[in-house]
């Protein structure tokens, strides 16, 4: 993987699809976060449009991980930011044998002897339309971007400082 030098410790990773309307929101947040933090040492900001096992390649060797993604639970209004800490992260699930999520990816990496992040926090933005091809998010989701950026930046800085 492309790594900065000296080794960074905090990874901010935006996930999503840039041509599926609201699904791009994690990528939009990551871009803003990068612009805000510049080349601050100890923090790396990346985006990926891939899914599944790719996450393992992305997060290996980092101490801390801040994930930003779109989600549709139907139980919060579009634009709502769900914040998920390590305790609430679903671990290896029993009911879905094929499932490979964050918790499971961490467990897989650890079982293979890879260095996985010790601290993980997820910012998941409730979206309205992730199924229509398009490049502009819906208004409520667009409005959530600056708010999320603030929270992600604060979290990344806090961890980067603690790691000094």
């Amino acid at each position, binding site marked *: 993987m492309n790594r900065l030098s000296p080794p960074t410790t905090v990874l901010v990773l935006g996930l999503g699809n840039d041509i599926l309307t609201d*699904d791009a929101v994690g990528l939009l947040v990551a871009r803003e976060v990068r612009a805000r933090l510049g080349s601050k040492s100890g923090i790396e900001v990346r985006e990926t449009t891939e899914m599944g096992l790719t996450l393992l390649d992305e997060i290996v060797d980092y101490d801390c991980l801040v994930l930003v993604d*779109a989600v549709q639970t139907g139980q919060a209004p579009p634009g709502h930011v*769900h914040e998920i800490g390590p305790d609430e992260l679903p671990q290896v699930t*029993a009911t*879905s044998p*094929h499932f*490979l999520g*964050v918790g499971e990816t961490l467990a*897989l990496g650890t079982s293979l002897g890879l260095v996985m992040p010790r601290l993980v926090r997820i910012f998941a933005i409730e979206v309205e339309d992730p199924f229509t091809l398009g490049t502009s998010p819906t208004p409520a989701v667009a409005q959530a971007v600056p708010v999320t950026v603030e929270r992600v930046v604060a979290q990344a800085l806090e961890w980067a400082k603690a790691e000094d």
Partner: protein
Amino acid sequence: MDNVAQQLFNAGNLRANAAYAASKRNITIDPITRLEGHGKIDIYLDDKGDVERAYLQVPELRGFEVFCRGRPAEDMPQITSRICGVCPTAHHMASTKALDALYQIEPTSPGRKIRELVYHTFMLEDHALHVFILGGPDFIVGPEAPPAERNILGVIGKVGIEAGKKVIATRRRLRELIAYFGGKVVHPVLGLPGGVSKPLSAADLPKFRELAKDGVEFAQWTLDVFRTIVLKNPDYVKMITSDAYTHRTCYMGMVDEQNQVNFYDGRLRVVDCDGREVCEFTAAEYRDYIAEHVEPWSYMKFTYLKQRGWNGFVEGPETSIYSVAPLARLNAADGMATPLAQAAYEEFFKVLGGKPVHHTLANHWARVIEMIYAAERIEQLVNDPEITSPEVRRIPTAVPKVGIGVVEAPRGTLFHHYETDERGVIKMANMIVATGNNAGRIAMSVERAAKGMIKGGHVTEGLLNKVEMAFRAYDPCLGCATHTLPGHLPLNVGIYDRDHRLIRQLVQE
């Protein structure tokens, strides 16, 4: 799909989403699960309360044609590869081939070989991911194993940590080869009408030759793992060959001049349930051979063999339903083009009692055989003297009009069809994806599972699990539509009475 149907579809989708969300007491949010894509099964009962029909609803991507219209055709390989985070390289290649056809140009020989090199690397990587990660929980850990063990950690437990590391490391190296040519895997910038954008430097060849050698070894090792764990277990074999997972349909796959399996180019060949050739056609002729049928009770489109006409969801000599993906490809061909894969192919049909094999679960084994073929083909290509030639592109000069491209994607045949004005601006764009080609047979499998579990209006415990196993064997990829991780399919089953009123809903996360 017309506008009314599209609106109905969207409304139905919203209701399903709302019902699904409302039924969840505790929300667990996992971003990699991404958006709540779910498998939606509809089961219709007759007046006795028995199953009349059942099917898996495959959600449809919205706005594809509108999004593409007015854009330069050259953008299509990038756009279509971005639609799906699961098989971007397959869309990229089908799209690139459609551009060749659009501009009536053949790629140079080295350009074609680089495309093939990248494509076979993708097939090997994606198949490996499926065998070990997505299908592994069922087959390596075992279909009857306790649910708590049927996950990726269970797979590692069974094959060993060293083997697990080997899988992860090999996969990463294969992806590096794809990235060498195309940049990011999801946004490859490799394919151009008439060739590719980048040659292979002679200086980089040794490491790819090393990878090719390791790839062949890796694929053969995978076959050994499969033989040891699956084939030596009589319970697994009994399950693979059981009636519950057997359907006598037609099969479609791409073949070369010798009727051997080909992922990148060739003619589409269809055989019937007795293995006899039904038809053979080129990508450009697909509309003469494949048609789409819509049932009054669904807005799903089921593809079928046009010349046979729509004969319903029937099996046997009358059927016009065909299946795609690894098993279908092996059935539709006369053999494999490389020696190790050919040996594995012969063993497959010998053990399973001759051609064609109708057992859906044999797809897992067929997939391993295709891994060997892909790896051997990579080795041939990196040892081809032409592979480092700088002549990787021919510049198109013809006036564009219609372009149809086809490849064999990991999950089956994938068609891209574009029509443009004389400047090459898209006027029409259509795709038939692998899961669409398989929709008819998937419906048959779901229906059979449901029939065994619902009698006289009584729903037996375990229905969800049985129907899930029935369609999971096809590895239906809803990634093009729902952007959810393949294989992770929270289930939402609706049961309807004879008047098509919803009488019961079952949800499984």
